[in-house]
């Protein structure tokens, strides 16, 4: 697939969202067109106020096979959750 355009991962910040969320991926020849394509593919129904694009090859990820050693040890550490405190209202959303 030599002629295939590179793959881009698309992140959109929604109308009321505080942060950009991964919404999917698409192909584009460069970053500028990736933003335009993302606008046309992922914000047609008024979903976004901001778009980030990242070429997929620049994302480093954990391997699915490492799931056990990476994540399971924290399953049993309930004391790490800050559920034992009352959060003052002034703090807002956390």
């Amino acid at each position, binding site marked *: 697939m030599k002629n295939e355009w590179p793959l881009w991962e698309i992140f959109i910040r929604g109308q009321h969202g505080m942060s950009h969320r991964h919404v999917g991926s698409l192909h*584009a*020849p460069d970053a*500028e067109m990736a933003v335009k394509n993302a*606008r*046309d*593919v992922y914000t047609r129904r008024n979903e976004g106020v901001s778009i980030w694009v990242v070429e997929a090859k620049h994302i480093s990820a954990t391997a699915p096979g490492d799931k056990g050693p990476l994540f399971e040890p924290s399953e049993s550490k309930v004391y790490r959750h800050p559920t034992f405190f009352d959060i003052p209202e002034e703090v807002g959303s956390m």
Partner: protein
Amino acid sequence: MAVDKQHLLQFLLRQGDNTLVLGHRVSEWCGHSPILEEDIALANTALDLIGQTQMWLGYAAEVQGEGKSSDDLAFLRDAWDFRNVLLAELPNGDFGRTLLRQFLFDAFQSVLMGRLMKSSDETVAAIAAKASKEVTYHVERSADTVVGLGDGTEESHRRMQEALEYLWPYVGELFESDETDAAMAAAGIAPDPASLREEYDALIGKVLAEATLDIPAATYAHKGGRTGYMHTEHLGHLLTSMQWLQRAYPGCEW
């Protein structure tokens, strides 16, 4: 200053028919574009154009005052009543030609909408303000693609240059003026199209140069679309498919 109703109607039909006919042309790509992303982008553009049509023809029907709707104007007029420029009705050709036609039209719209936003007619100004956001995006996108294909591979460059040779003789009509344009200009409703040429040439000159495309030297311009004097043979075929449902099943709704 009171403006002649027939001139205002004529002006509005020109606006609405341009976006209607080009919108239909662009919609013909739906499901056929070279890649998914472009397919969606083209469909979005077509929908924007049809949305603008609803506003222009809706106002035209109101000015006409015969109790017709924008749908009546779109689907129940015949070719000789259409007032779109010939550029809008030309067949799509390949993807490159479609995008170049889009760019040549978008560039014109972007210059025109800027002026219409200051129209003395409040409705015209409001339609232009809404359309101008869409147009700004359209011209950015089509310009990018024209540069990408023009300054692309040997084949894409050749196809784009051929497209420019084919489309260029239809650009001149955009800047034609007649008594309707004079009446619009006098009333402060719309600029004389001829006065937009310099800004247009600067805009497209920059993009086409970046796209390494040569503007043809010939100045001959096909005309007859915006006056309704003589459309190309392509318009009738386009209307045949666009209007088929309303012709076969008059008044059909869903």
